[in-house]
């Protein structure tokens, strides 16, 4: 039963990893843009949640209301003003600039919030759990994380499949030159993609703040988990990204069960095995 519990908790943890990964997957899928500061933006959103709770005294989940729209707007503006200058066939400029952004963000957070590890309390929700019988239980917060991940991925997929903007985003991902012949301003569309990704980042940051401890240097590890989830799942499929997150979460859960020191290592080992056996990922984008 303890093993089943480890798998169950791993699956729920995978929801958080899927949220980390969805933003990264969006940016790379549409703009061929690698954001090395992705994890640091998630941590920044977590610190904003801390500030929100300190200022208002409300439950941290209310932080979603101001932080998600604020980061979506900031993402749009950041893409139009800075990042659009980097978009092109070459990946290197985006890697260099976002690496710089990562260093700047980490040090800004260190200056502002100190190096202490922080946690945001959601009150009674922190310890609330739903018993499943047989000694199994799921925490309300991990469950909330998992449901949020599914909801976000379902919403993004719906946008891609059924809206004009989603159609334009898919077309841009296919052939960024030809979309301009359709009267589509690539710079505006890239900024919309960044805005969507930033909204997911903001949500992931708020939920991370409620779920676990964080400190200004915690970003790169989140980035690593996000990359692993994207690559396990296969580029171009958000449901694949969720599967990748779940596989990573379960591997870590089982690793921790074997030996607490094995948790992170077990995740990396499973990632490497999948990378060797199936480098295109489990659910690669289908091309005709």
């Amino acid at each position: 039963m303890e093993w089943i519990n480890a798998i169950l908790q791993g699956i729920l943890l995978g929801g958080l990893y899927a949220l980390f990964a969805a933003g990264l997957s969006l940016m790379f899928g549409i703009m061929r843009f690698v954001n090395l500061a992705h994890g640091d933006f998630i941590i920044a959103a977590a610190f904003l949640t801390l500030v929100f709770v300190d200022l208002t005294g409300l439950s941290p989940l209310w932080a979603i209301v101001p932080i998600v729209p604020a980061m979506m707007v900031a993402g749009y503006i950041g893409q139009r003003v800075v990042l659009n200058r980097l978009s092109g066939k070459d990946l290197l400029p985006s890697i260099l600039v976002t690496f710089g952004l990562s260093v700047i963000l980490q040090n800004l957070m260190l200056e502002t919030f100190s190096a202490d590890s922080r946690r945001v309390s959601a009150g009674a929700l922190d310890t609330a759990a739903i018993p499943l019988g047989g000694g199994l239980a799921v925490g309300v917060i991990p469950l909330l994380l998992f449901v949020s991940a599914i909801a976000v991925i379902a919403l993004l997929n719906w946008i891609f499949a059924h809206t004009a903007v989603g159609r334009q985003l898919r077309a841009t991902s296919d052939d960024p030159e030809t979309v301009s012949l359709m009267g589509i301003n690539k710079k505006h569309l890239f900024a919309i993609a960044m805005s969507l990704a930033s909204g997911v980042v903001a949500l992931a940051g708020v939920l991370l703040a409620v779920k676990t401890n964080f400190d200004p240097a915690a970003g790169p590890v989140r980035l690593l988990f996000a990359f692993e989830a994207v690559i396990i799942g296969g580029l171009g499929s958000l449901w694949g990204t969720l599967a990748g997150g779940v596989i990573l979460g379960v591997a870590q859960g089982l690793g921790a069960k074997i030996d607490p020191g094995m948790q992170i290592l077990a995740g990396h080992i499973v990632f490497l095995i999948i990378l060797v056996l199936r480098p295109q990922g489990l659910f690669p984008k289908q091309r005709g």
Partner: protein
Amino acid sequence: MTDLLTASSLDAFYGDFQALFGVNFRISEGESVALIGANGAGKSTFLKVLTGLLPVPGQSLTFDGTDLTQHPAHEIAKLGIAMSPEGRRLFPSLSVRENLLLGATVAREGPWNLQAVEDLFPILTEKANTPSTLLSGGQQQMVAIGRALMANPKILLLDEVSLGLAPVIIRDIYSALPRIRENGTSVILVEQDIGQAVAVSDRLYCLQEGRISLEGPSATLDRADISAAYFGRKKEHA
């Protein structure tokens, strides 16, 4: 007739490489103009200039009273120039109908909509939900033309429509041209097949190594002159 689009002594460059030299070109409303020439003569380059994919700052290029050199590609599409590009360039992640709908992004008024395009090429109704990559070459070409028509353009650019297609399919596709033109849409078509180009155009330009080597009404131009302009003087004895 007033000119809808004019280019005067237009030069175009890919980096340091000059692809077009002093091209003078005009087309009026409702007119059909063919561009012919050998591979690398500059035909597709000229269409890239017209659509803004290849910017030509400082050159003289006017469309409907607007200086085109001041506008990026997505704005030129909104002004009313649409292209069916060489190689069709359909979006593989999109179904046939989604490809067509994407063409309507510019939201210009006019006779063309999903219904009208599917009436013009009825096979596209049947294939509406098929991924564009699973179509035959001819069907893909119909989608590319339909997608351009969805923009209700004033000028439709057709780049190498017949490339890689069977003669019977080419005839099918060109038989749609009169219905496209009856609404007053001007057409500029790039064609390797001289016979086809002469048959469907009012006037004709021949490009050779980036320069206009011949120009005139398609009906009265002499085939020998066209051949000479097409291949260059060296082959005149052939």
